[in-house]
């Protein structure tokens, strides 16, 4: 009798058992999938997932090396056409009026005088060809030029020991980053894309470009920059995307 249940030489018995087992495992599978759908909307599960996301913020803060540079690429590798991304379709891109534009500064900053575009263009400019990685998974290489953000923050007397820098944008978008990333040498207040003044679809009049963070953390159409110790959150971050979202 030993192993008679196992032997495949008795197809009748084996088949019955197999069918029963498959039926059971299928219903277990279906149950767990159903439970999975319910689970996500369950508040306690949602709380655990949120807490894990905050834990991942901390881990990413530890992993972030303020001196580690993102890879730079040859200009021949720039993705053309460079994809548009935003929380609205490209046809709804906001056009910010240049004539009365002033960049507002707020929070823990000493000199809060608003900046006009020609004044910003007159600051020392640097360029980078880096990879933008979208939270969706795709990536594209682009060239951005502008002021090194750490230089700008120092120039306006921002409190560099504060924890966060927040951004309010002309397209009702908002976001915020950690101070360590704000001071990273490749974090740019960018005015140009591919050597041209940023067209509206890429964020005129300026975009914060950080190759060390996912695309949605790079705000466009910036109207106000402020420094704070309370996390200002963000448009996508408040909807459940990970706040740090570092690369």
């Amino acid at each position, binding site marked *: *009798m*030993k*192993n008679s*249940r*196992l*032997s*495949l030489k008795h197809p009748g018995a*084996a088949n019955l*058992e*197999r069918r029963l*087992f*498959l039926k059971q*495992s299928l219903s277990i599978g279906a149950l*767990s*999938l159903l439970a*999975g*759908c319910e689970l*996500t*909307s369950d508040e306690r599960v949602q709380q*655990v*997932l*949120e807490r*894990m*996301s905050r834990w*991942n913020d901390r881990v990413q803060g530890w*992993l*972030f*090396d303020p001196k*580690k*540079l*993102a*890879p730079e690429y040859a200009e021949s590798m720039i993705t053309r056409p460079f994809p548009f991304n935003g929380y609205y379709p490209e046809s709804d891109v906001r056009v910010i009026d240049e004539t009365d534009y002033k960049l507002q500064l707020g929070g823990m900053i000493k000199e809060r005088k608003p900046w006009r575009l020609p004044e910003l263009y007159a600051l020392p400019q640097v360029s980078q060809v880096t*990879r933008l*990685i*979208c*939270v*969706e*998974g*795709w*990536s594209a290489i682009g060239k951005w030029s502008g002021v090194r953000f750490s230089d700008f923050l120092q120039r306006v007397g921002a409190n560099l020991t504060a924890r966060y820098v927040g951004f309010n944008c002309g397209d009702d978008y908002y976001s915020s980053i950690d101070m360590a990333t704000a001071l990273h040498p490749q974090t740019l207040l960018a005015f140009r894309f591919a050597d041209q003044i940023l067209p509206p679809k890429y964020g005129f009049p300026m975009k914060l470009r950080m*190759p*060390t963070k996912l695309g949605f953390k790079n705000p466009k159409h910036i109207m106000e920059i402020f420094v704070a110790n309370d996390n200002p959150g963000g448009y*996508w971050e408040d*909807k*459940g*995307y*990970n706040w740090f979202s*570092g*690369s």
Partner: protein
Amino acid sequence: MPNWVRVHPLVVRITHWINALAVLIMVASGWRIYNASPLFESFTFPDGLTLGGWLAGALQWHFAAMWLLALNGLVYVVYGIVSGHFRRRLLPISPRAVLHDIGQALRGKLMHEDLSVYNAAQRAAYLVLILSLILLIVSGLAIWKPVQLQELAALMGGYEGARLLHFFAMGLMVFIVVVHVVMVALVPRTFPTMITGRLKRSA
């Protein structure tokens, strides 16, 4: 007097089921993440088989369960090496024996009488499964941190290379899991042993 044979050690049973849960969450949420920007335009996963409801939800599941997968995997691998479990159960393994046993299995002739001894096809399958999971974790780290871990990402051809590798390692892993589950269905008495750890000797 029933005579019990010890088939699976406790650590292996616990880590097996935690791993099963973690892999289920990682695959179901990973498929949702894939769908947000498919690597292959004409291929997406049915939403009904995914977890998270939308991209942000799927990412929350994926980046929570990754800790479960990695820590549990670490316990299993350290145990497997230190206790000699890997050496005893998964080795030795020769390509010829693996091919022979796979051929036998395809003809429905492969026997698995002593459940505490894995045949060559099983050894190969479990080793490849372990390797594919390690590959998934390593390529996943490169996708998560393509700047901080850029040296690691560079080994895979950078961010986009790591993405491709992550996808194909998932495919390999899911294939072995499907074969594994089918084999358990064909030899159902193996199933309870992964819970109780033992088998009643009928002789």
